[in-house]
């Protein structure tokens, strides 16, 4: 017997399988180990690792094989050149290098529960992910502890917030025997030259293409070394080892549960391989799961995938035609709350919580799956991503992933028929117009800014000019007659005087009408001709120092060349006062009006001011400016630019409403009762 590593206390005889312990210079037989169960582990005793930077070289000195009765896995005892040692652990396709450290104060084994958080002082906080018992079923090479083969170990696996992992080893007693802390390692980083790729190891066990002992149907196993249960895709019968301590190879599986027909028909073919979102997958099996809510049973399918490069197990969940690709994440990196959960700085809102039950299984599985198996399943969403928790009595598992459109699934696995169209809105289905909306909003902002630039450019560059600007003063307050300020030509008053000599009608009504006409004519003001240089709009500004009075002006723009007349009215009125101790005001001294399409040419302006007798403002001013870019046009353009993206964004509200209508919770996280009402 040889002990390669100084810390080793036991060596397994390769010939007789005896476990030989050393006590000082003496050797002691402590039992015989069983035959090793073939696994798909890439490691072998005797391998040397020359890892990349950050890790020390080590030698694989021994192998411990453990079984929970639901699965068997290897832990590799490694010795470092400085005499220290650790464990290279593997489970569910992942690898961790664990080092023994000083045990912290921890609760008794019976007090541990998956999902709880343990504060381990200087080691940090850890989430308990698994609390189990495992049997020391076999070993080879050397081991750093003395225990008879067949011993039962109690342990708790922990997950740290920084991605670290830890194991509390309680041995077979209530108190802690050992504490191991480590980090996940990538196979490629270990620098082990003799490593065999998973696909090649699978090929090496291709002899495990079996026939179902119940129906004789062919079973093409993709992951035979890790397979603990097989549900025959032809007859649905569940195959496995009846011995809970020795799962044995699939070739020795017997019928555990006989079925006459497959329990369900998965939409994806089991055994199919394909590349999806940067991973190469093989579909190992499918679980049909169910839960009850509001008196109704809901069903969905979860496909077990083997990721070929990392050898990890991923999941593809399908519900109502919606697919979500999920992969395991460390529980210690998840912060779980009643309404939200967060993982790596991303927050997810709770969407559903149910007692999920396995209703049917098909394909191959790495654990002892069975129908009726129940877990508490909670889904949190942040479309297009989902964070999912499955909690059982002995373990808790978190997965995180993203929505995958059915077309992408069909293409990845080269399906001959397209997958059925999804029904409704998926839990983490992204709003399909998100990218379009982003582009539209971006375009709208860009074009709105461009419109503003155009507006100011037009104001700066285009030849807009004041073509008429005149102030009119009140000349006759009794009759409300105004005259142009500084005018030396005939005024309205003059014209009024000339009209005064006309014969008066005998009929009183006609006489009154004639008098009104005469007064109106007296008030009328006719401007000197002015010229507009180009065909454009005309901004008309009216201003008067009105203060609790008004002046209304009738405008008539008359083209000297064509006789075309444009008529409109404007009013300057401003009222203000104090009512009930509060100041109020209304109206405006300034008014502006745009007259469309005024051709170039000579124009005359006729004004008909009208005001309240005795309350006429002392003056008013009229200014005409040709070719003024209209700011309201800019406003309309900006409104039009934003109205369409806004409408599109409103459709997102409808989409989200449909999504959350399917949820056990409101979008704010309030739980709905069985009738769908918010739980106050």
């Amino acid at each position: 017997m040889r002990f390669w590593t100084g810390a080793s206390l036991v060596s397994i005889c390769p010939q007789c399988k005896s476990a030989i312990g050393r006590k000082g210079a003496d050797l002691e037989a402590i039992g015989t180990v069983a035959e090793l169960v073939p696994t798909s582990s890439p490691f072998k005793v005797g391998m040397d690792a020359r890892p990349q930077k950050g890790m020390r070289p080590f030698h694989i000195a021994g192998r411990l094989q453990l079984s929970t009765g639901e699965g068997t896995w290897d832990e590799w005892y490694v010795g470092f050149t400085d005499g220290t040692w650790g464990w290279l652990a593997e489970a569910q396709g992942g690898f961790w290098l664990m080092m023994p450290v000083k045990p912290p104060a921890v609760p008794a084994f019976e007090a541990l529960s998956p999902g709880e958080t343990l504060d381990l002082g200087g080691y940090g906080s850890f989430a308990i992910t698994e609390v189990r018992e495992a049997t020391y079923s076999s070993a080879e090479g050397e081991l750093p502890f003395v225990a008879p083969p067949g011993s039962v170990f109690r342990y708790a696996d922990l997950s740290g917030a920084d991605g670290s992992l830890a194991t509390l080893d309680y041995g077979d007693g209530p108190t802690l025997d050992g504490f191991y802390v480590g980090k996940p390692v990538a196979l490629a980083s270990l620098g082990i030259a003799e490593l065999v790729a998973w696909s090649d190891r699978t090929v090496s066990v291709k002899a495990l293409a079996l026939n179902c002992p119940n129906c004789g149907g062919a079973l093409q196993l993709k992951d035979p070394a890790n397979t603990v249960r097989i549900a025959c895709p032809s007859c649905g019968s569940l195959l496995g080892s009846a011995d809970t301590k020795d799962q044995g190879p699939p070739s020795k599986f017997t019928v555990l549960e006989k079925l006459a027909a497959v329990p369900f028909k998965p939409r994806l073919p089991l055994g199919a391989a394909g590349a999806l979102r940067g991973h190469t997958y093989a579909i190992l099996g499918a679980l049909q799961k169910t839960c009850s809510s509001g008196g109704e049973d809901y069903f969905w399918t979860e496909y077990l995938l083997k990721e070929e490069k990392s050898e990890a197990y991923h999941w593809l969940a399908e519900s109502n035609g919606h697919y979500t690709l999920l992969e395991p994440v460390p529980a210690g990196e998840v912060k779980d709350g009643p309404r939200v959960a967060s993982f790596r700085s991303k927050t997810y809102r709770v969407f559903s919580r149910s007692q999920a039950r396995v209703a049917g299984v098909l394909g191959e599985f790495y654990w002892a799956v069975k129908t009726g198996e129940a877990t508490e399943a909670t889904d949190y969403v942040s479309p297009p991503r989902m964070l999912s928790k499955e909690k059982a009595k002995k373990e808790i598992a978190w997965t995180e992933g993203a929505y995958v459109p059915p077309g992408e699934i069909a293409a990845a696995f080269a399906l001959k028929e397209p997958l059925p169209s999804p029904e409704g809105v998926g839990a983490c289905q992204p709003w399909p117009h998100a990218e379009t909306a982003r582009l539209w909003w971006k375009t709208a902002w860009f074009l709105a800014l461009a419109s503003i630039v155009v507006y100011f450019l037009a104001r700066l560059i285009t030849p807009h000019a004041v073509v008429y600007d005149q102030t009119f003063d009140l000349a006759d307050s009794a009759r409300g007659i105004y005259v142009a300020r500084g005018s030396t030509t005939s005024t309205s008053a003059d014209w009024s005087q000339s009209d005064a000599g006309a014969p008066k009608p005998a009929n009183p009504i006609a006489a009154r009408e004639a008098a009104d006409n005469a007064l109106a004519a007296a008030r009328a003001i006719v401007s000197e001709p002015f010229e507009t240089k180009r065909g454009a709009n005309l901004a008309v500004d009216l201003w008067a120092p009105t203060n609790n009075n008004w002046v209304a002006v009738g405008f008539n723009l008359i083209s000297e060349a064509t006789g075309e007349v444009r008529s409109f009215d404007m009013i300057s009125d401003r009222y203000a006062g104090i009512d009930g101790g509060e100041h109020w005001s209304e109206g405006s001294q300034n008014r502006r009006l745009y007259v469309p399409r005024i051709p170039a040419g000579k124009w005359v302006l006729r004004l008909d001011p009208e005001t309240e007798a005795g309350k006429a403002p002392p003056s008013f001013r009229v200014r005409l400016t040709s070719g003024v870019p209209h700011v309201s046009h800019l406003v309309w353009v900006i409104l039009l630019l934003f109205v369409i993206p806004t409408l599109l964004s409103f459709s997102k509200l409808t989409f989200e409403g449909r999504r959350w209508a399917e949820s056990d919770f409101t979008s704010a996280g309030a739980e709905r009762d069985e009738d769908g009402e918010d739980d106050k």
Partner: protein
Amino acid sequence: MNPMKRFFQVFGGTLLLAYSLAAFSGWEMSGNTKRNTLPPGARNAGGYRTWHFWSGGK
């Protein structure tokens, strides 16, 4: 590119072009102005002032 994405770019671009033309040409939408034509005989200072034309022509 997705036609839906292209639609808004075309719509917005057309709108901006139309607005640019309107802004630089001084185009104006029809407002609350009435159009009329002065008879040739009235196209003089007296005619502009003649109230009977305006009141009778309304």
